[in-house]
C-alpha cells in the first residue's frame, strides 16, 4: 500500500471520490462462454477491470512428475496483458504473477472436486485485459464461472472480493486511487454457500477490529457477486453450445 497521507480519498459527505458509500461495490457484469476455443470461459467486468478466464480439461497431466495419483492438479496462469496497465508491461511471467497464480491455483483446488479426476490436469488461464485495482479477485471470480461453464464439478463456487482501508476508514472494493494511496488491502476468496475462505492475502495496516469489519464487507459483496455469477451461467445454458 502506498499509504500517502496527503491524498484525500473521502469527500466531506463521507462518500468516496466516485460517489460510492464505504460498503458499496463498483459495478460488476459477468458473461459465461465467451471464448469458442476453450472448454469453458468467462469474462468479468468489475469497475474498469476486465478479466477473461479460459478452462481446458480435464486432460492428461504431463510431464508425469506433476501428476497426483489421487486427484487432478489445477494449473493456473494469471497474466496481465501488456496494455492492461498505465505503463506497458513486458510480456512474460514476473514474480507477482507467479505468486498470484500459485495461491489462486490452491484456492481453486480447494473447491473443485479434484478427486474425481486422478492423474489429470485442469488448465485455468486468467488474462487481465484492463486493470483498475483488485485484478486478482476479479480473476478468481472469472475462473470460477469458467470452471462451471466447462462443467467441472465444484463443492461450491468461489467469489473474489476485497476490502481495504483509506483515511483510517474501512471500505469495500478499493479502486485504483484508493489502492495507490490507501492503507490496507484485504483480498479474499469466499465460498458463498458454506461461508468458508479459500483465498486470503492482506497487506498494509489493519487493527483486528478493522480486519473484522473488512471481512464483514467482503462477505456481503460475495453474496451480491454470487447472484451475478449464477445469473451469467443461467444465461449461458439458455443460449446453448457455441
Amino acid at each position: 500500500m502506498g499509504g500517502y497521507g496527503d491524498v484525500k480519498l473521502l469527500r466531506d459527505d463521507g462518500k468516496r471520490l466516485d460517489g460510492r458509500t464505504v460498503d458499496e461495490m463498483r459495478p460488476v457484469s459477468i458473461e459465461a462462454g465467451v471464448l469458442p476455443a476453450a472448454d469453458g470461459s468467462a469474462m468479468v467486468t468489475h469497475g474498469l477491470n476486465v478479466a477473461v478466464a479460459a478452462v481446458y480439461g480435464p486432460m492428461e497431466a504431463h510431464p508425469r512428475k506433476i501428476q497426483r495419483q489421487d486427484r487432478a492438479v489445477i494449473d493456473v496462469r494469471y497474466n496481465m496483458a501488456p496494455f492492461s496497465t498505465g505503463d506497458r508491461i513486458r510480456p512474460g511471467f514476473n514474480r507477482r504473477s507467479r505468486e498470484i497464480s500459485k495461491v489462486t491455483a490452491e484456492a481453486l483446488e480447494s473447491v473443485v472436486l479434484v478427486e474425481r479426476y486422478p492423474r489429470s490436469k485442469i488448465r485455468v488461464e486468467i488474462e487481465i485485459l484492463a486493470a483498475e485495482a483488485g485484478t486478482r479477485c476479479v480473476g478468481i471470480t472469472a475462473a470460477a464461472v469458467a470452471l462451471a461453464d466447462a462443467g467441472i464439478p465444484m463443492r461450491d463456487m468461489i467469489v473474489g472480493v476485497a476490502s481495504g482501508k483509506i483515511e483510517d476508514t474501512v471500505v469495500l472494493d478499493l479502486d485504483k486511487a484508493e489502492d495507490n494511496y490507501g492503507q490496507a488491502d484485504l483480498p479474499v476468496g469466499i465460498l458463498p454457500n458454506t461461508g468458508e475462505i479459500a483465498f486470503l492475502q492482506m497487506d498494509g495496516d489493519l487493527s483486528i477490529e478493522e480486519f473484522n469489519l473488512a471481512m464483514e464487507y467482503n462477505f456481503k459483496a460475495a453474496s451480491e457477486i454470487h447472484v451475478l455469477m449464477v445469473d451469467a451461467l443461467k444465461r449461458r445454458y439458455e443460449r446453448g453450445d457455441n
Partner: protein
Amino acid sequence: MVELVPTLLRQELERLAADNQRIDGRGQWDSRNVSLEVDCLYNAEGSAKVVWGDTIIYAGVKFEIRTPWPDRPTQGSLMCGAELRPVAHRKYEPGPPSPQSIELGRVVDRGIRESGCIDMEKLCIVPGEKVWGVMIDIHVLSDGGNIFDAAGLAAIAALRTAVVPAERFDVGEDHRLLVNGSPIMASFTRAGGRFVYDPSEEEELGGDERIHITLGDEGHLHSLQKGLRGVFTPSEFAEILAVAEQKCTELREMVAEKEGN
C-alpha cells in the same frame, strides 16, 4: 507439439475441393463473419477487438518516451509483438515465445512498418532527446483459424484510433496518432490441394502451406510471408494476389467506418 496427422480430415478436404466446396459451406474466396470494435479497453491508448469466426483477438497500443538512436535523432520507433498464450487454444503451451508467435508478431509488424503508415519523424518530441515509442501488442484469446488476418486488422484499427498521451508525459496536449493509410493482410491456405481465403481451424489443421499478403491503400505489396510445408507456382500466386486486392479493400473500409471521423 503432438500433431497426429489428420488423415481423414485431409481426405475430406480433398473430396470437398473436388466439388469446389468448403467444410463450412463457404465458397473458395469467401470470408467468415468479421466484427470490429475499437476503444474498448481502459489503460490502452488505442485498442481494438476483432471477432473473426471463432477467432477473438485484442490489440492494444501503449506509448513510451524514449531516447532516439544516435544515428536517427529525429525518429521515433514502432514495435509490434504477439503472444500466442495458452488461453487461446488447447494446443498452445506456456513458456518463452514460440516460433509461431514470433512469426505472427513479425509479419504483422512488417506489414505496418513497411507500408510507411507511421511516419517515424512525426514521433519526434525533442530531436536527439525525446521521441515516442509506439508499442502494439496483439493478444489472441481464441484461435479459431486465420489469426494472422484478425491480428493485422486489430493492430491497424487500434493504431488508427490511438490517442498519444502527451499530457500524462508532460509534453503537450493529447492528440490522435497520425496514421497514413491502412495496410491490410489477406491470408490463404492450401486445403484440399487448392488455395482458399480465410482458412478455418479445420482447414489449417488438414491443410498445407499458408501465404500472407499485406497490401497498402494503393494496392502495393508491403509484406509477404510463406509459412508451413508446401510449394506453390507463380500462377497460383497471381490468382490469390487478385483475390487479396479485393478483400483488403473491403476490410480497409470497415476500419475507416470505426474511426468515426
